[in-house]
């Protein structure tokens, strides 16, 4: 589904991603961990098409297409969804209008007719139940005045409505209380299918107890320095990143 080859990316002249290689197949869930500032969000943003990133080298293919050539909205319609680490407040744009516009854009791309108001509302109600969000949020502006946890749940709600093929969750677990964490994880698990895939960026093993990944990667200073199965996350939880740092420095001095 997604193939990243030797991706090097700079922000304002500083190289942040220094050669990422990653292969994600349909049906898989990959966790990406790594210390603060290692480039996790940068990777997510580059995949989603955010401006301000300079691709120095490398290639990203999504469903066989050259992803880096597409504008963000086309990537989204092709099935890439980014649950933001810091969701933006958009005063004046109601949740209902926003979600319906987005859904219809995605549906049009898939060759499906737009949803009428009634069908949309029913769909929305069902998905809101999934993330245990109250219906009164529909009349509010997107994320405006939402608590940290509500914003994160809102990301999952949008994901559930748009039904992407590759969802990238950037620290969706941060700032969630234990109940919200369970709700979010449940939401994700219910959406997992053979024909879609997830990238879960997190600092905590805790989330991976709920969303059990097929692969775990460690991003360190712009490179994936370690890949493994869910045992790797447990190891990190116990030993932190220090042992990796040592390995890295010794590898570099060799």
């Amino acid at each position, binding site marked *: 589904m997604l193939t990243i080859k030797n991706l090097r990316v700079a922000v304002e002249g500083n190289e942040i991603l220094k050669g990422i290689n990653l292969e994600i197949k349909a049906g898989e869930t990959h966790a990406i961990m790594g210390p603060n500032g290692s480039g996790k969000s940068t990777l997510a943003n580059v995949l*989603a*098409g*955010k*401006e301000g990133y300079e691709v120095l080298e490398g290639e990203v293919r999504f469903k066989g297409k050259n992803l880096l050539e597409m*504008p*963000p*909205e086309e*990537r*989204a*319609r092709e099935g890439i*969804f*980014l649950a*933001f680490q810091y*969701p*933006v*407040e*958009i*005063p*004046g*744009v109601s949740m209902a*209008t*926003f979600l319906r*516009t*987005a859904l219809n*854009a*995605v549906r049009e*791309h898939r060759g499906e007719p737009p949803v009428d108001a009634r069908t949309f509302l029913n769909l929305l109600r069902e998905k809101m139940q999934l993330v245990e969000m109250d219906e009164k949020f529909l009349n509010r*502006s*997107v994320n405006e005045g939402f608590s940290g946890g509500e914003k994160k749940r809102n990301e999952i709600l*949008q994901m559930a409505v*748009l039904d992407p093929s590759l969802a990238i969750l950037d620290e969706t677990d941060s700032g969630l209380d234990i109940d919200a964490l369970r709700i979010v994880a449940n939401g994700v698990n219910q959406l997992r299918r053979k024909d879609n895939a997830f990238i879960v960026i997190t600092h905590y093993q805790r989330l991976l107890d709920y969303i059990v990944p097929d692969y775990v990667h460690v991003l360190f200073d712009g490179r994936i320095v370690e890949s493994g199965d869910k045992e790797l996350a447990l190891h990190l939880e116990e030993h932190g990143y220090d042992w990796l740092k040592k390995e890295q420095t010794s590898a570099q001095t060799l």
Partner: protein
Amino acid sequence: MKTAQKEYQEAKEWYLKLFQQWRSQGQPPNGDPLSALRENAIKRFAELGFPHIRMEEWKYTSVEPIVRRRFSLEAPPAQVDAETLARFRYFEQTSIVLVFLNGRFQPEWSVIPRLPQGVIISDLLQAFKQHEALIKPHFARYLAYKDEAFAALNTAFAWQGIFVYLPSNIVLEQPIHLLNLAHPGGQEFAANPRYLFVLGANSQATILETHNFLNDSAYFYNQASEIVLQDGARLQHIKIQDDSRQSFRVTTTRVVQKNNSHYHAVSIDLGGLLVRNNLTVDLDGENSESHLYGFYLATERQHIDNHTNINHLKPYCDSNEMYKGILTDRGRGVFSGTIYVHRNAQKTNAFQSNKNLLLSKEAEIDTKPQLKIFADDVKCSHGATIGQLDEDALFYLRQRGIEETEAHVMLRYAFAADVFDKIGLPEIKEKLDNLLKERLEKTL
């Protein structure tokens, strides 16, 4: 090249000459109840001349384009048909519709259904004949025509206009729609419409002013209004200005509010090449409230200037003001909002904000909030912001599959909706929404 001074002098003389001609032709026709007032007003205009940019209140708005032109007083005779008018109607149901073509009241196209006992909606000069006792105590009593050139000019030439009078305790359910259409037909004309609205104690009304055009050419509206809200009266006053992009407009409005009265104004400016709105509200009665909202969209080479003055003269009054503008291309906006609190006006609450979206490098906004507070027990605040579109919000929308252009429109719409939402007329919301969206799409 003529010096600006000479231009201003010649322009002044042009209007003085027009006045003499107009008067010597026996205008306005059928006897003039305002002779003495006109002479006073034109004298003041002769002394004042047109304002220039060295004056503090006109620092950012040069009226030179108006000064350079020689508008005629005679608007070309204009024809409309029912179908054309229907395009500019806002209310489906029974409403009061007063049609003005090139500034002239058109009784035959207007719709005035049976009105409650005592309510007057009348041609201005007619009203002096039929309701002198009601109109005389108010007419030209509030407008500062002795100090402001445009108000003086309007007063000198005022004969086309409307007098609205509500007796005490009347709630006028139907909105009054003042439907203005400019149909210049090539001739550059000036109109001086004059309105007087007097709302008796505890009466209520809604007034919708719309300004549209049929031919895109130059004309100049110099409009003046006086609004009196007696104790407990409530007025919702909406204006949708969508004039020709070649036209000029100066609007001078003075509102006087007595005890417990409530004024709610929403002023939308989309059209015009050069627009200047002077809105002054006197909170001259305790416990009165004034809510002033405005939205302006200046594109191409439009220049839209809103000058508001809120005078808190009595204690326990609230004023709340929010103006928002979108400026693009070489569009230019000016906002100057003065809140004056008299030393007797204790317990005043006054809030003001002006927010602007600058969407191009050539666009410009000058914003000047001013507080002049002479009482000590008051709550006042003001703030002005100038910003670009929120790139993070734009990316967020696009990341959900929304087309870039549509995302832009959504964000601009959201910005403007703050003001449009203050229009308390649900039956015209859809029409206004469409108008706004259409305009915003054109700004892309």
